[in-house]
């Protein structure tokens, strides 16, 4: 059966660690790192594979640093 899968790519050097994306994700895909990026901000990363590509996080990100992918995959 074909299933829709999503993925996000975060430009971590441009992320300002505002955390606004976290609450917008219906599947708790995003969390903040303990490490900081070159600008000194904790940055957002993916922490599971449950992304559906709904784009919520990317739309609400003030700095527009999230790219969203979506594709149909056939489940094994």
């Amino acid at each position: 059966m074909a299933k829709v899968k999503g993925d996000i790519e975060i430009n971590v050097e441009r992320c300002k660690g505002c955390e606004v994306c976290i609450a917008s994700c219906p599947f708790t895909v995003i969390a903040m790192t303990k490490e900081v990026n070159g600008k000194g901000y904790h940055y957002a990363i993916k922490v599971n594979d449950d992304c559906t590509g709904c784009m919520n996080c990317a739309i609400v990100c003030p700095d527009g640093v999230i790219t969203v992918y979506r594709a149909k995959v056939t489940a094994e």
Partner: protein
Amino acid sequence: MEEPFVKTDIRKEENIVYKRTNLLVDRPLSYCPGCGHGVVHRMLMETLEEMGLQDKTIGVSPVGCSVLAYDFMNIDMLGAAHGRAPALATAIKRMWPNRFVFTYQGDGDLAAIGTAETIHACNRGENFVIIFINNGIYGMTGGQMAPTTLPNMRSSTSPYGRDVSIMGHPLKMTELVAQLPGTYYVTRQAVHTPSHVRKTKKALRKAFENQKNNTGISFVEVVSNCNSGWKMTPVQSNKWMEENMFPFYPLGDIKVDGKLVEQKEAVTKE
């Protein structure tokens, strides 16, 4: 910086469903983390991209945190003196009637020093779009009280809260300009959640569609956070905005197609 979950099979060019528009210049925005200005910039540029207006639009940037908007928006732009954006936009639109023209202004710019320019451009029914970012404060200069600051709201110049008996009442510019015959579309939106962002984009689209027909001013207010000025984290500031700003500045359309929408009574927090 290793990501534990990377789905390389999906992460391909042809599977991209959302990325930062090319109408935003590829450089970091100057705004504080979590500031709504960045979202409005992106929605505005996406709207112009989708309408194919990149080379047909002239924007006017204000004085305020968005003074550098011309550094981020990859379109023709002019910078106005503080509050004078609607006057400059009037001149531009009258000289270039086939261009799409907008102003982008903060509440200090539009509702304080530029009150006269705003009201008269709206009353004359000029044919451009006004985008009004209301964060209830002078963000750029250090969080001073603005005409839009809520009753009892703390700012660097009202550290004990705005006492309306001494400092006057907040000004609802958007309701005010909706009363003028020269405005055709007047709405108030927000950009702190995905559904609000989507609605703001629809409002911007409607505003620029209106400009095709020379119907008068389309006025889009966006109630936004100034988390630095409010002295909160971005997430806290968005919650505070929902609890305090929205009751005073209720979201939704105020005037559509030249007609006032039935207004719900605004609840003022005392």
